[in-house]
């Protein structure tokens, strides 16, 4: 079953690439704007041998990783504190609901005003967008604590900190993992967007340069790289999730007893 799916997946991808090759060659689309697959592949190979490409990739990954790390750390701490301190969650709920839907890109002018085209501009946007993903999941996760588990911990003399560590945190972990996976994807989108619009160094600004200099195949090659990056990040996040949650029902499945 799994093998069959893999074959079908590969066949689908091959068909898509073949279509991308055939459509411009048959004149169905303008070749100047939609170069055939082989041209994009050539441009991609050229990019890979260019040091500037690798430094742009490094910049994007730096912005992504730093921003994500800050957002995850802040999201977890804020989520736990909001849930544990009585009344704090109710007091902040409306503010969170107001701030959360603000699109991060709407903060681009602010970021430029504050930090220009520095890395900090990218970080501001990345952190703002990913923070909410983590925070909301942590809030849900903390609510999911089983009253029986909590009572068990209390009856065995576990203090507040021990209960956060041994009951609340493991309970919230599956939610946190989901939040991190979502945040990782959002962070990449925002990192590339920020570079593209603000011109901070990275893949995004390289795409903008390729576009303005009419290097269309190179532009597509860079877009492909950004797509592959997203794919890798998702696969990586899922792997981490499976490892950390081996005990969880969603991962372990049904166990024959």
């Amino acid at each position: 079953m799994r093998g069959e799916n893999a074959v079908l997946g590969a066949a689908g991808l091959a068909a898509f690439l073949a279509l991308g090759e055939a459509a411009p060659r048959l004149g169905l689309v303008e070749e100047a704007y939609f170069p055939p697959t082989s041209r994009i592949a050539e441009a991609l190979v050229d990019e890979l041998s260019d040091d500037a490409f690798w430094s742009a990739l490094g910049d994007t990954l730096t912005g992504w990783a730093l921003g994500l790390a800050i957002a995850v750390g802040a999201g977890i701490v804020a989520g736990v504190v909001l849930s544990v301190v009585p009344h704090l969650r109710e007091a902040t709920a409306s503010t969170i609901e107001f701030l959360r839907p603000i699109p991060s890109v709407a903060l681009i002018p602010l970021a430029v005003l504050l930090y220009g085209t520095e890395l900090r501009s990218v970080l501001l946007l990345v952190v703002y967008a990913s923070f909410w993903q983590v925070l909301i999941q942590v809030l849900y996760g903390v609510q999911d604590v089983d009253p029986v588990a909590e009572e068990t911990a209390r009856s065995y003399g576990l203090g507040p900190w021990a209960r956060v560590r041994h009951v609340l945190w493991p309970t919230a972990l599956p939610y946190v993992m989901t939040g991190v996976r979502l945040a990782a994807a959002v962070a990449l989108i925002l990192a590339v967007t920020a570079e593209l619009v603000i011109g901070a160094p990275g893949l995004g600004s390289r795409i903008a340069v390729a576009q303005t200099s009419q290097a269309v195949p190179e532009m597509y090659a860079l877009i492909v790289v950004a797509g592959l990056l997203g794919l890798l990040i998702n696969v990586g996040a899922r792997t981490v999730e499976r490892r950390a949650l081996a005990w969880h029902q969603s991962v372990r499945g049904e166990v024959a007893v």
Partner: protein
Amino acid sequence: MLDVRGLRKVYEGSGRRVEAVRDLTFTVGAGELVCLVGPSGCGKTTLLRCMGGLLTPTGGEVLLEGRKVTGPPPGTAFVFQEYGRSLFPWMRVAENVELPLKQKGLGKARRRELVTDALESVGLADAAGAYPWQLSGGMQQRVAIARALAYEPRVLLMDEPFAAVDAQTRADLEDLVRGLWRERGMTILFVTHDIDEAVYLGERVIVLSGSPTVVREQLTVDLPAERDQLHTRVAPRFAELRTHVYEQIQAAKRGIAPQDTPETQDALAKADAPPKRDALVKADVPGDPDVRTDPPPSR
């Protein structure tokens, strides 16, 4: 050892006021195994949670060794009915048993010793490295019991611990608890809705009324200390005791018919519970002289 005095618990919330426990007074002596039995929904669990310091009573008090219980007291272990939720699925069996010991601040060697000993006592020495969810229900409840044992409690509170396991497993677990009690000499308060279980396990059975709960009767179980599933359960004395408790519970249930006001409930409870001293020992107070005058059969 354990004194419950005038305990009262009223739940209030969303416009509803539920008096779960009205006025409970009883004592559990050191090293006793007492079973609390009552009709379903009679506040047994509320009572036990108050005794374990997990709930604050509305009125009255619980004293453990003369000291008022205000939070979970050290030296008291709890075994919950919902073993699947009480054990932490993210920890292996041995880690589950060990966690409370870490909180106690015991050294590593001592912890390991206690964990091994407790798991051996419940016959699960092999399962130390498994996750709870890899075990059957009965085995999971054994792990929960092992966790309580390793904690070296002076008082063990058990809240309908075998209500969710199958009948055969339940019999094994009952024998396990009795065996551990005789071996380790701790005080056990065992809440159950199963009359046979209460009589089979307990040295004393406290029968509760329907909600709002009061103590309806206290009964000394004068069965021999050595009990087994096969012979004890067919002993004539066992049948007498369980019949008596059954009648008490039935009467208690009738006492909670919805049209009854609290006053008539009390009247009913009194009318339905004449002291049957000819057939049975009624121990309103532990150490009631009647207890000793009654000749214990087949001992």
